[in-house]
């Protein structure tokens, strides 16, 4: 029951805000819907802690240890981003960058985007998973082009075409998967695409078909994860869209796409063994990490810088899932959580920093600490957290991934260390220049909303020091399931 309410809330919110999003109180309504969604997600989580995994609606939806924490995380970041965007969008309106009509589009699409992500996470049907992923692209295209500037239109077009083509390949992979499933499960209508059913018979699925299917699924959903070499849309879409959209794209959408890849990987591994899928994930993962780390040096735009950092972290997570095994999977799941929290916090801080200085060029952003100590510290601490400094959670997950790599895949360790070092030098140097020095900013018409930044960072710090036992249990169970 909670599952259906959880899906109905953002969908209802999208409809209401699409009709009345130009109203003065629309940002508050947006926060309200997001808060309600989060509350239901918490309720669902509590129920899962008490009663264990569950399915509903003739097995069409399900919650298991792998998706339950992602659902809560998505609902949480959704809520904090709505809080941030309330102030952020007010300021944008004051600065005359957006009108009321655009804000209506923005609020409607924002809730719709949440709905598609929750649907993707909760559905048990791999076909619906695809539909939800495509709908997630569609609902964000017009958000990326919200400012209607030449650059934002270009970014949105690139985003649509690249992700559209990518997702079409994933559909082909899904068709092949269905083809293999039908031969085992019989022509059972919808049932043959249910993940739980497939998981039960995964060792009987036709290996050749599944191997081909996995290539298509990985490339297809991998485009949305931002894995190299199909990552081109990601920095553009992050840099040109409004900052709350960058925060949810980086913090949530990439996770959801990776979730889709891993769900498929579990099935494929059951049929053809861990060799091929693992190698492919490791290859694309390490390629993304290296490419992103070196691209970080060349960035001038602050949002592009952190977009490349997202590619790097997605690469690390993909690599860890590729290694497989209990520890690496545990670390990858933890890294998904902490990256999502940290990166969205950074984008919140970056958003207000660009509003204060009136530019996204890092050369123009100076002296944030003098301008607003809370903002400066928020960006600095966020950067330290994302770069893997102890005691933040990113350090814990990266440490686990590196030590496992030393044991399991020694060849990869120097590459990972090199990339992490390069990324550290690039991002830390830039942030230091932006935070310190003489300041040249303006006062904002509405005080910036920095509470979400520090709440996120506090959670990341907490996860670095102590993981709540129920969360650790989920990670462990999910890690065992992923294999």
């Amino acid at each position: 029951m909670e599952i259906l309410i959880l899906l109905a809330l953002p969908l209802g919110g999208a409809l209401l805000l699409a009709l009345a999003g130009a109203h003065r109180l629309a940002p508050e309504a947006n926060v309200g819907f997001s808060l309600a969604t989060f509350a239901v997600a918490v309720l669902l989580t509590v129920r899962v802690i008490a009663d264990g995994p569950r399915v509903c609606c003739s097995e069409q939806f399900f919650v298991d240890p792998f998706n339950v924490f992602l659902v809560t995380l998505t609902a949480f970041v959704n809520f904090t981003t709505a809080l941030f965007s309330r102030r952020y969008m007010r300021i944008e309106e004051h600065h005359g960058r957006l009108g009321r009509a655009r804000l209506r589009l923005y609020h409607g699409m924002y809730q719709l985007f949440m709905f598609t992500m929750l649907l993707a996470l909760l559905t048990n049907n791999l076909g619906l998973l695809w539909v939800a992923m495509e709908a997630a692209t569609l609902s964000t295209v017009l958000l990326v082009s919200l400012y209607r500037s030449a650059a934002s239109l270009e970014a949105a077009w690139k985003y649509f075409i690249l992700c559209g083509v990518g997702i079409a390949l994933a559909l082909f992979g899904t068709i092949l998967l269905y083809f293999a499933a039908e031969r085992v499960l019989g022509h059972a209508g919808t049932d043959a695409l249910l993940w739980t059913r497939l998981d039960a018979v995964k060792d009987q699925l036709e290996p050749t078909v599944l191997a081909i299917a996995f290539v298509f699924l990985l490339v297809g959903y991998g485009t949305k994860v931002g894995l190299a070499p199909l990552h081109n849309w990601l920095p553009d879409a992050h840099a040109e869209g409004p900052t709350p959209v960058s925060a949810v794209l980086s913090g949530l959408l990439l996770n959801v796409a990776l979730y889709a890849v891993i769900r498929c990987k579990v099935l494929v591994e059951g049929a053809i063994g861990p060799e091929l899928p693992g190698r492919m994930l490791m290859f694309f993962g390490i390629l993304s990490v290296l490419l992103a780390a070196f691209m970080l040096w060349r960035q001038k735009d602050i949002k592009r810088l952190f977009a490349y950092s997202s590619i790097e972290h997605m690469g690390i997570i993909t690599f860890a899932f590729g290694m497989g095994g209990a520890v690496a999977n545990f670390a990858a799941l933890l890294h998904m959580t902490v990256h999502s929290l940290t990166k969205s916090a950074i984008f919140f801080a970056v958003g207000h920093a660009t509003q204060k200085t009136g530019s996204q060029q890092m050369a123009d952003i100076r002296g944030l600490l003098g301008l607003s100590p809370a903002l400066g510290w928020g960006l600095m601490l966020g950067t330290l957290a994302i770069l893997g400094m102890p005691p933040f959670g990113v350090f814990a997950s990266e440490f686990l991934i590196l030590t496992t790599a030393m044991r399991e895949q020694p060849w990869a360790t120097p590459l990972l260390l090199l990339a992490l070092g390069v990324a550290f030098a690039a991002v830390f140097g830039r942030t230091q220049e932006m935070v310190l020095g003489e300041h040249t900013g303006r006062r904002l018409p509405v005080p910036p909303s920095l509470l979400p930044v520090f709440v996120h960072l506090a959670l990341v710090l907490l996860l670095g020091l102590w993981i709540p036992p129920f969360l650790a249990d989920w990670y462990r169970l999910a890690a065992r399931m992923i294999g």
Partner: protein
Amino acid sequence: MPTMPLSGQYIHLFASVVLLLSFAMLAQRRIRTLIDLFALQGAALVCSTTIVAWTGDQPHLYYSAALTLLLKVIVLPLILYRLIDRLQLRWDTETGLHIPATMLIGLVLVVFAFGLAQPVSRLAGHVTQSTLGIAIAVVMLAFLMMITRRKAVTQVIGFLAMENGLFFAATSTTYGMPMVVELGIALDVLVGVLILGIFFFQIREQFDSLDLHHLERLREE
């Protein structure tokens, strides 16, 4: 080799029509004619889906044939016609396209597609065995079209043609996806085209043209 039943031959006939239309689209410069061809390809898909439904005794495929008829033969072409009328692109042509070279690459892609389909189609049912190769070929040709075209509208038609190929793959290997998934896909395609319609006006407003050369400024320096 035993002779194929008549229905199987019809399926092959329509499959080859679909492939032929893909090549026709690849070689077509005029945007209006391209939409005609796209609608025709949809019609060929409807015919082949109906025959598969009849021979395979798959009643739900009739629904998906009806859905295709509605969406790809009627609604999408109408939207696209209206769009090019409103944007005054009716007589627009695609320049800077080397057709013979594109066709040659297309031929290579078809051979490659059949090679790729080999291991899978060996396992497929008797009637639909060679159609998977054609389906993959249609997807790849549409992909090629998207790469070679410079206009936003033609790229979108390429994108829709790719979806045609995927639909064809679904009917030919598995008797179609479950209904709820097909409905979802149809909804996504429809919404996608509507969003792109809005998007075209935004691009036009900004650049006074729908040529994608304008959309190549964001680069890594």
